[in-house]
């Protein structure tokens, strides 16, 4: 085992007290989350297995005819994304709580909103990876073409809103002993508007409605994303501090 060396290890004056950049801090958190997940694969594998099981169960349980499948698809898809997303959000913040890592993050001299945005981007990346895998599997199982640009835009907007709120609430829930059950209880009521809008917009695109008919739901998704990202940006500091 190496022994601690006895040389003087104060750094040169130029290397001391620099200001870490906001974007650099966000980038560092995203890199850290992706690097750790690439190695452990705990979070993604749990989300993926869960999501695939949900669509399999729906497939066998409902035995839908082709027309009903088209109608039911948006609901099944968003239920799958929501439940798998909750699993990912819980795990993503639990990793920060293990070994006191959240305190390590909070001790960094960066605006704490950088931590929020870093975690949000990581969570969004994990959710999008799951969606990229689920969509083709769903298409094959349910015999429905889901590669519709409008639907993909809705999934992207819905995921942004879901993760924006979910990251904030999971950082609250992780401070409690009942974090696993608390997150869905806190999160689901708050994301009801986004789920309704996402399901309606997805349904519209799958049924081939004109964009103008779907647009109110798209607008609701955009407004929700902007408002909740702004709210999270403003309150995150208070949420994570004792």
């Amino acid at each position, binding site marked *: *085992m*190496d*022994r*601690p*060396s*006895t*040389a*003087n*290890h*104060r*750094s*040169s004056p*130029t*290397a*001391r*007290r*620099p*200001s*870490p*950049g906001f974007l*650099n*801090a966000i*980038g*560092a*958190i995203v*890199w*850290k989350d992706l*690097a*750790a*997940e690439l*190695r*452990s694969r705990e979070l993604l594998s749990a989300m993926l297995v869960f999501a695939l099981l949900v669509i399999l169960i729906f497939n066998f349980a409902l035995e839908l005819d082709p027309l009903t499948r088209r109608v039911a698809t948006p609901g099944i898809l968003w239920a799958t994304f929501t439940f798998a997303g909750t699993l990912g959000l819980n795990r993503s913040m639990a*990793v920060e709580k*293990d*070994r*006191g*890592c959240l*305190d*390590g*993050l*909070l*001790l*960094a*001299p*960066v*605006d704490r909103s950088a931590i929020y945005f870093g975690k949000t981007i990581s969570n969004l990346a994990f959710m999008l990876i799951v969606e990229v895998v689920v969509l083709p599997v769903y298409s094959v199982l349910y015999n429905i073409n889901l590669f519709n640009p409008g639907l993909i835009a809705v999934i992207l907007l819905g995921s942004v809103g879901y993760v924006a709120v979910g990251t904030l609430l999971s950082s609250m829930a992780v401070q409690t002993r009942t974090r696993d059950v608390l997150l869905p209880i806190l999160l689901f009521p708050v994301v009801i508007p986004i789920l309704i809008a996402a399901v309606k917009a997805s349904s519209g695109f799958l049924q081939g409605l004109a964009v103008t008919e779907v647009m109110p739901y798209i607008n609701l998704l955009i407004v929700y994303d902007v408002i909740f990202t702004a709210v999270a940006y403003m309150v995150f500091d208070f949420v994570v*501090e*004792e």
Partner: protein
Amino acid sequence: MIAVKKLVKRFGLKTVLRGLDFEVQEGEFVALLGPNGAGKTTFLRILASLSRPTQGEVRVAGYRLPIHASAVRRNLGVVTHLPLLYGDLTAEENMRFFGRMYGVLDLGQRINEVLDLVGLASRRRDLLRTFSRGMQQRLAIGRAILHDPDVLLFDEPHTGLDQDACDMLDRLLHEVAGQGRTVVMTSHDLARVEDLASRFDVLSRGIISASSSRNGLGKNNLLHFYRQALAG
């Protein structure tokens, strides 16, 4: 370097700190002693800007908390009984991540210096979760000094370590504290802090109930001083 006046901290109806006054000069190594539940960790978390004071004035490295929390954090390193490091990253990746979070310049060279100091240069590419508890704690010290802070806060750093790991940690604490840094350390292990600290403060019933320099105490008198402070 640290100045605290009439600090009060309440959690709901429970008052943990009751008008605490505390001052540490530059380069001092202060051991903060006290029984379980005395508020040592709460006090250190306030100094570390992880918790807000209910009342009172707190200054660390010349900056007031919580207003200038970011400036305080830039001058502060914290080691707790948890390593605050990621198990699925290697030692070097952990250092690189926290170096980026602190905006450390010339990061590669600084990581080499720090890993050399904590004696983990040869394990730099190993995952943290494969490290023993003692090695994790040494790397935690590396994380705390990576940005070369003037103030170090140690909250029960010996917890869960065996005798050899404690001895090695003490040598490391002595080394990093002996470079002109100001240190505040909480501990239950009087024998260990007796050799490390230059001043001993006892936190009891939410205030500093007694304080003594090492010279004022005499050899092997720390236990007597501590018991008297708690009894008084």
